[in-house]
């Protein structure tokens, strides 16, 4: 991600969203059942090795979803949760919405990757509503996804355009789920979050010390 205004000023290389997608793809265990949220997380699919055996779930009623459909392969009856036409892989299965969300809510998916406005050190997630008076609230499947998978990862830039951290002691935006995120992947580094607070796993283009200071966390 080439220098958005709010990012740290260190000279190092922060990850582009595509590079970050590759990092997340690397961390998803082979054979996992995975839901990739709309927006940036969708890119992760392009970085999964062909032999990963990862099966993608889309909450509008499908397992083993394939890549985006192009040209003649576009079928209006076959879309992902972002309503983008997609394809089906061998071994795909279709089911209705109640069954699809039962699958998620019942904890049968291994990993879900979501975008976020903010994540709190304890794993609280805010990604559905800015809370601004003029905004029309729209939640979609965000709250169901947030509490559903065994592991909920967030993929986001670490800072807003105006330089505010998005990994925060406490979310100021309305919550999507409480304590539900376990890991946060950002252009500047990867973090574990949860009941024990935030912990830096790795950093990109910026020192752990500088990052800790910007976020107001203490290194162990």
């Amino acid at each position: 991600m080439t220098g958005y205004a709010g990012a740290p000023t260190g000279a190092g290389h922060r990850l582009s969203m595509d590079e970050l997608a590759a990092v997340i793809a690397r961390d998803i265990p082979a054979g996992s059942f995975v839901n990739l949220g709309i927006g940036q997380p969708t890119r992760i699919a392009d970085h999964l090795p062909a032999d990963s055996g990862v099966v993608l779930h889309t909450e509008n009623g499908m397992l083993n979803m394939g890549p985006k459909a192009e040209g003649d392969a576009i079928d209006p009856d076959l879309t992902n949760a972002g309503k983008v036409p997609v394809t089906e892989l061998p071994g795909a299965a279709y089911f209705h919405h109640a069954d699809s969300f039962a699958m998620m809510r019942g904890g049968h998916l291994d990993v879900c990757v979501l975008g976020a406005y903010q994540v709190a050190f304890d794993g609280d997630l805010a990604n559905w509503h800015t809370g601004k008076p003029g905004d029309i609230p729209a939640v979609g499947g965000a709250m169901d996804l947030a509490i559903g998978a065994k592991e909920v990862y967030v993929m986001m830039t670490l800072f807003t355009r105006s330089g505010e951290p998005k990994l925060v002691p406490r979310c100021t935006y309305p919550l999507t789920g409480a304590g539900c995120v376990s890991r946060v992947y950002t252009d500047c580094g990867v973090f574990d979050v949860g009941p024990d607070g935030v912990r830096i796993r790795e950093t990109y283009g910026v020192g752990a010390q500088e990052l800790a200071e910007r976020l107001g966390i203490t290194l162990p």
Partner: protein
Amino acid sequence: MSRARILESTDAAVAGIEDGSTVLVGGFGLAGMPFDLIDALIRQGAKDLTVVSNNAGNGDVGLAALLAAGRVRKVLCSFPRQADSWVFDGLYRAGKIELEVVPQGNLAERMRAAGAGIGAFYCPTAVGTPLAEGKEQREIDGRTYLLEYPIKGDYALIGAHAADTMGNLVYRKTARNFGPVMATAATTTIVQVDQVVEAGKLDPEAIVTPSVYVDRVVQVTARHYTVRGAR
């Protein structure tokens, strides 16, 4: 419910829908949306409707057209705000339509509960969020749940791929989405299909909506739209 009727026109299919009805409308975005039934409902004229659907209309077709015709008092949905939901956005900002936002999985499960005779259920979704406000909360085995009530429809308008003459239904790919659940949750379920086949022609192992949930069926010429934009 007694035997499904195969009707000759969409107008006959939507006959009798009363002002003030709660109408469950199938589709996830445009996939599975019963365009022809909605057009017939616009001609039929029922107003003051409460619509339950995942979205609040895309572009100017289907549900968006029903909203534009001013027939809808209230929308229950999970995701009203989309790149192409200008009709809803305009009505909402003008204070001309009421909105209840329901998480997508709760929307589906609450309709399933209505169809399955479940009085209410404890659901972990939305705990600790603004959508938990006013809901009863309960700890079960160390986890917190909210009490959710069924959503029942007077009518369901859904799209399916094929019906047999008894009313059994099959769907196509992700156009299945809310159809099977809505069919169970409505007093009267009205279905538009691409084709009607003789009873016995659909594989009994592959029928998704059994005939008992279907009241009226009408065959229409398949029309498809593809949307650009977020869910």
